[in-house]
């Protein structure tokens, strides 16, 4: 049923979303593996010379720490960095795509990249994949008004029909000839989600800028912000101590305090604080600026020496095995 994709498309592919939904609905008790969420604290603020971004370094998989020292501050351009919260893969891939697109954009325009451009590209992409289907879906609603029973089209993709989902309702086209190939429509026919919340910060010709972008594509321009599961803790520190036009030292201190609050008071955040300072002169990333919660040393040895458990009886049963086939494959060692 699943056909190989001979024409690989760039960008995100949501082909499996429908299959997973079908599996979940038809096989009771099946838990589809969920994407790993970073469970993060990320924060950013604008100070007198530029922007400071901060992030923790813990990546969680439900309640297990999957990565104790992951990097959440991503490079977009030499003067623009982006912190990502939400689903780790989504944040990583989105920011990588942004970095590539910004480089191409800068090369084709011959101008240095701007923070507003990154923010616009990000939110347009997130909006596309997080909500509306543009154009195509309207047609299918019309067909659906006939009130036909929903038909499940099975696992794979059918060229002549497809299912689209809008706001939790299913619309189907049955077996009508669409007249188009599915992969042409697919980027827009999905309610695929990119679960990435991002803080974009940078210094360009217009000055220092800080934007927060949410998974559905909304954005805000702010002087200080925090996102992720630890955002409440971080925001409370920032709200209390932020002043406009702080010096570099004050700004760094505040960011460390804000992310530390997230690390200590949020279960999904932990390990170290990473920091990125961006000014007119350039950007500087510092990994593990601070480690608020040091893992304690084990108090004793917990390995038992051999012989601690007494052996009462030992039985050896040889297995009668017969050699059936022997093949020798020589390796080319020259």
């Amino acid at each position, binding site marked *: 049923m699943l056909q190989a994709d001979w024409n690989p498309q760039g960008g995100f592919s949501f082909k499996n979303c429908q299959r997973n939904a079908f599996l979940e609905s038809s096989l009771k008790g099946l838990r589809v593996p969920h994407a790993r969420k970073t*469970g993060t604290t990320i924060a950013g603020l604008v100070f007198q010379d530029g922007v400071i971004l901060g992030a923790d370094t813990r990546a969680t998989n439900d309640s297990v720490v999957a990565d104790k020292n992951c990097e959440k501050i991503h490079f977009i351009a030499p003067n623009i960095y982006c912190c990502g919260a939400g689903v780790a893969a989504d944040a990583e891939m989105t920011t990588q795509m942004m970095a590539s697109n910004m480089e191409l954009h800068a090369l084709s325009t011959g101008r240095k990249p701007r923070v507003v451009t990154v923010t616009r590209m990000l939110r347009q992409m997130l909006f596309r994949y997080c909500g*509306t289907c543009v154009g195509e879906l309207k047609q299918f609603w019309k067909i659906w008004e006939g009130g036909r029973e929903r038909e499940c089209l099975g696992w794979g993709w059918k060229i002549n029909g497809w299912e689209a989902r809008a706001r939790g309702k299913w619309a189907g086209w049955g077996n009508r000839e669409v007249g188009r190939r599915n992969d042409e429509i697919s980027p827009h026919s999905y309610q695929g989600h990119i679960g990435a919340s991002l803080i974009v910060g940078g210094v360009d010709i217009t000055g220092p800028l800080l934007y927060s972008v949410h998974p559905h594509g909304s954005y805000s321009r702010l002087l200080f912000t925090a996102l992720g*599961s630890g*955002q409440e803790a971080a925001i409370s520190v920032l709200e209390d101590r932020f002043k406009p036009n702080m010096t570099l030292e004050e700004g760094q201190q505040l960011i460390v305090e804000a992310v530390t609050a997230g690390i200590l008071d949020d279960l999904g955040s932990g390990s170290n604080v990473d920091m990125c300072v961006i000014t007119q002169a350039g950007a500087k990333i510092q990994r593990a600026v601070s480690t608020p919660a040091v893992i304690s040393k084990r108090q004793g040895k917990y390995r038992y020496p051999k012989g601690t458990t007494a052996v009462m009886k030992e039985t050896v049963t040889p297995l009668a095995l017969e050699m059936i086939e022997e093949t020798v494959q020589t390796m080319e060692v020259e």
Partner: protein
Amino acid sequence: MHGIGRMQESSYFGDLPGVGEIHTGTTIMAVEFDGGVVVGSDSRVSAGAAVVNRVFNKLAPLHQQIYCALSGSAADAQAIADMATYQLELHGMELEKQPLVLSAANVVKNITYKYREELSAHLMVAGWDPYQGGQVYGTLEGMLIRQPFAVGGSGSAYIYGYVDASYKPGMSPEECRQFTTNAIALAMGRDGSSGGVIYLVTITAAGTKQEIILGKELPQFYDEKSECKEYNSLCETAK
């Protein structure tokens, strides 16, 4: 017109406190006067129970003398505003003059109507043009209706009585500003998802003037006034 209800998305984005999408949960208002309009909004953006941004300006310029006020889902509203700004700029270039407020309202209405199943945002369009002067258009769910004044957003439900009783035709710009400020302040006082500061924009032939009314300067009503005994006793215990 009832404010747009909240959309219940599944809580996929566990990082955000509360459920699902970012909403503006707003109070927006626009009033027409002879020679222009006054547009006003609060500044709160909420995601479930958390306030994501307390100083968000919901008045977005669509063109030089045309503004729109955003409400509903923040992502949808911002996306519609971007699309409308782009289309209007193109339209203005083709026309080689300033587009009409009616054109801007139609552009917004077309987008809202075409994708009304998928989108959940309401943009109120207001501005000034040389033909019809100040105009206010509501584009809720894809209709187009011109009104002498309009309120929108979740907070508007609490002030229908006030605006209906207080509006008088032929108000001056200053009276319109005061009317808008009072109405939004009252809504902010009763609606949990509206709050922060009040942004005001006055659009006339001369241009646009933006104002921000910060917390301390907000109009105070009977229960917040310094003569109010209950309020004073609360302040005493807080000290």
